[in-house]
């Protein structure tokens, strides 16, 4: 009996430690959506579809959904548009592609809950009488009744559960743009996303999750190449087994590129690759370069200026700031030429914000909403962000009671829902 108990305890221990993997469903099997006559949705249609929708027919996702489009540019400059639906229950969302066929609008994709491993296929149809005719007009006249008739399933099962979304109102749009910032490029791996944190693949995906900007972690290789990597050492939390151990700064970029793969198989990106992906392939408008090392910031500053100029040349709104998380980084920043005109974000005191002439103050969320300090910063023409908010109740509270211009989170879809459904 003792032996059986011991075996059970040991088994439970190992099973309890096993990381759960989420297998994303294959949503490409809907014959109607794959019909050769199905055509992309025009820009005006996509824009008119965005909004806050009432949910009926199912309580799996809550009572409201915020629908918003994003895009990603693929390798051959082919752009894919996704409509994301952010729900208020269990940090759930769906991501679909859209097409039109015979006067109908079709949406096909998957849904996912971030508090569990639940996921499945989801499909929507907008019939001509339910708003498709108006939406497909070259100049859609709104408001109009838009009803999305949907079906969703679990895992790879054929979707059979009905869900109906009815357009209620436009997305909330505040007086100033609100920044939904994704931590470590999109979210930690603990969120069981299919791509690794601080990877180009994560940056390409994050707008689907509701992000308007990203925070990424910058370190240097032995040969002085700025790369994206969070921890001090090469470890199993971030990388696959490679035989390489110790500080990442011990290796050149060529060595890391040849031997190390991130936890989901991607290569460690250079900062240049990351900025290039964000600028040319996503709609992201804000990049926070969190400095995870002690050393000169000149190379980071040079890349920052280079990519802001490229964005300006493209007429593309993109703000890139150097993060200053501690006194050591502040001192390095103050040694930079032109530091006072270098866009930066300071996580320290208001006095440090003034000393570094940072354009953004970013206190930790545990300090509370600090509305008076936030108002004082905003009165100087600066902005205030708060980090890192992951608990849905806190996200809701900070959006409801706070005055911040942006929130950094591992769950940007939860921030997006709470921001966009505001009345």
């Amino acid at each position, binding site marked *: 009996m003792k032996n059986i108990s*011991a075996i059970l305890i040991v088994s439970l221990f190992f099973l309890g430690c096993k990381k759960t993997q989420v297998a994303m469903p294959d949503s490409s099997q809907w014959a109607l959506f794959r019909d050769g006559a199905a055509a992309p949705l025009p820009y005006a249609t996509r824009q008119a579809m965005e909004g806050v929708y009432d949910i009926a027919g199912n309580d799996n996702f809550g009572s409201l959904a915020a629908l918003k489009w994003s895009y990603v540019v693929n390798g051959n400059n082919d752009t894919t548009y996704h409509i994301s639906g952010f729900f208020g229950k269990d940090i759930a969302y769906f991501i679909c592609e859209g097409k039109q066929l015979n006067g109908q609008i079709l949406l096909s994709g998957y849904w996912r809950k971030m508090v569990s491993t639940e996921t499945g296929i989801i499909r929507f149809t907008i019939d001509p009488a339910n708003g498709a005719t108006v939406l497909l007009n070259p100049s859609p006249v709104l408001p109009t009744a838009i009803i999305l008739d949907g079906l969703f399933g679990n895992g790879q099962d054929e979707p059979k559960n009905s869900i109906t979304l009815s357009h209620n109102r436009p997305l909330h749009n505040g007086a100033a743009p609100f920044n939904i910032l994704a931590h470590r490029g999109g979210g930690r791996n603990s969120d069981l996303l299919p791509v690794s944190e601080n990877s180009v693949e994560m940056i390409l995906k994050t707008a689907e999750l509701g992000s308007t900007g990203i925070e990424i972690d910058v370190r240097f290789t032995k040969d002085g190449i700025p790369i994206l990597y969070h921890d001090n050492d090469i470890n199993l939390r971030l990388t696959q*087994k490679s035989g390489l*151990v110790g500080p990442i700064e011990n290796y050149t970029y060529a*060595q890391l590129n040849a031997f190390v793969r991130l936890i989901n198989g991607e290569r460690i990106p250079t900062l240049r690759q990351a900025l290039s992906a964000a600028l040319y392939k996503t709609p992201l408008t804000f990049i926070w370069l969190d400095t995870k090392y002690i050393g000169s910031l000149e190379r980071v500053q040079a890349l920052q200026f280079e990519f802001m100029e490229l964005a300006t040349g493209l007429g593309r709104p993109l703000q890139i700031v150097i993060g200053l998380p501690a006194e050591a980084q502040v001192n390095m920043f103050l040694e930079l030429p032109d530091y006072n005109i270098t866009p930066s974000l300071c996580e320290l005191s208001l006095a440090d914000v003034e000393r570094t002439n940072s354009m953004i103050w970013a206190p930790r969320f545990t300090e509370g909403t600090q509305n008076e300090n936030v108002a004082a910063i905003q009165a100087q023409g600066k902005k205030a962000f708060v980090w890192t908010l992951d608990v849905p109740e806190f996200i809701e509270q900070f959006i409801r009671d706070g005055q911040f211009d942006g929130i950094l989170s591992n769950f940007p879809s939860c921030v997006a829902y709470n921001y966009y459904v505001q009345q």
Partner: protein
Amino acid sequence: MLVSFNISTAQQKVKNERLPRRKPSFVLHAGGGMSYYTAGISQTSVAIPGTLNKWSPAATLRLMWYPRYRLRLGIESGIANFYRYNVRDPDGEGKVTLQAVPVLVVWNMQVRPRWNIYAGFGSYFLTSWLDYRGKVRSTDVVLGSNVAVSYTQPINRRVSAAAEIKLMNAFETKDAALTLQLHFVWKVFQWD
């Protein structure tokens, strides 16, 4: 729990065999053999297929304090390569070896005449030896343990030979290797 149950059973059996009263001593174990990497790494994602080598020579050095009672205490070190492999890309070919040097506190008990079990806990000094567009030696210290079983054959009053099977487990990095070794066991000092 399973280990403690087996140990208590074994203790009773050993007691019944009326072993002679022991004299405190220091005993040195030194030996070598082969190790095989047993943790999950069927093929690293970047390795040239077929170049992953999990076999390696292994060595152990252990100093034990044998008191009058049955539970002995000591320190153990050694060396083994967990694995090594090659990569090739347009810029050239390279190789990496992951080497482990344990530094562990070890407990030992004789469970039957000539049969001993060992359990250790401490650190593994892991070293990467990389040769690709420059050489790098990089080290990390991680938590780990080991368990071993040995059979000892006395040669004379102070010297024995032992065969030992041991699992090295650097659990913090999920690296593990099974080793089979022959040991020279020398009673270096004994109180009369």
